[in-house]
């Protein structure tokens, strides 16, 4: 199945985030070998150049590493994965706040709503 992309940011950035999520969520486990660029690109329905660019960026961040002949692997360094998870969480929070802002809520109001939602869950 081809991956779905939104319009606001470049495809390679979205591919990066997608792979990051796969690593953080454990869909790709530490030390696991990634499919070849061509196959991975085909799976995602993107240009191999785009996939290459995304993987190179991820490599720079340390989340994956490459071996000259055998391809790309997920890092075994848990610290890096944890850090990436935190980054993603922060990004997600930013997005939440931003869309709340667009609806006319202040950060405090948004937090209150969130609190309310959490209490609801507890009651259930």
């Amino acid at each position: 199945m081809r991956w779905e992309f939104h319009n606001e940011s470049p495809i390679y950035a979205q591919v990066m985030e997608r792979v990051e999520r796969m690593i953080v969520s454990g869909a790709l486990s530490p030390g696991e070998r990634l499919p070849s660029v061509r196959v991975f690109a085909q799976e995602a329905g993107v240009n191999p150049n785009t996939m290459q660019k995304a993987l190179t960026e991820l490599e720079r961040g340390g989340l994956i590493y490459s071996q000259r002949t055998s391809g790309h692997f997920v890092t075994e360094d848990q610290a890096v994965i944890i850090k990436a998870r935190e980054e993603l969480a922060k990004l997600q929070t930013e997005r939440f706040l931003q869309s709340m802002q667009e609806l006319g809520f202040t950060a405090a109001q948004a937090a209150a709503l969130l609190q309310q939602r959490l209490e609801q869950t507890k009651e259930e």
Partner: protein
Amino acid sequence: MPIFTCENLTKRYGPVLALDHVNLNIEPGRIVGLLGPNGSGKSTMIKLANGLLTPSEGRILIDGKAPGVETKSIVSYLPERTYLADWMSVKQLLKFFQDMYEDFDRDRALAMLNHLNIAETQRIKQMSKGTREKVQLILVMSRRAKLYLLDEPIGGVDPAARDYILNTIIGNYEPNAAVIISTHLIADVEQMLDEVIFINGGHIIRHTPVDEIREQMGMSVDALFREEFKCF
């Protein structure tokens, strides 16, 4: 050196100007979308590159040479129409392509045909329109060409077939080759393009990397296309 070059390329059909002094360079290794509404000059440009038409003015160069026997051996072309003789069987077609094109990879074609459960004994006549188009695409993408010219590869196919076609293109083009895909269905091909060329009324309006459009303008190619072409 660019694999594909247009220098003042002009094509007239009688009084109608199909291409008007077009200048263009495409480098190897890129997947390029040739995007424009119907009648914008896309097909004319691709036909000129294949030597099916002759320029009225200017020239078109493939790997530095004008279209001819030499360029035809490095260009793999998927026309809009099905061009396979209906009496031929898959086996005969494979033999024909193998005879005619030195860069034809029979094993790759066979693997793709097997994947779709198309038997070698099947004749084109017995196939549905969709299957014919897939067989044609398989033959075209099984060549290790330097330039792939794909004219409306996903025009009028269902979404499942569209995914199959796009995956086949991504999975099989030669890494050092350039791929030019002409289409008006931009949203469907956008995520696999490196560069886009907007063409209208025989003029090239824009030739930009896709990332640039998204990064600098914050919009998709599809959205930009709709905006730039809405007044026409």
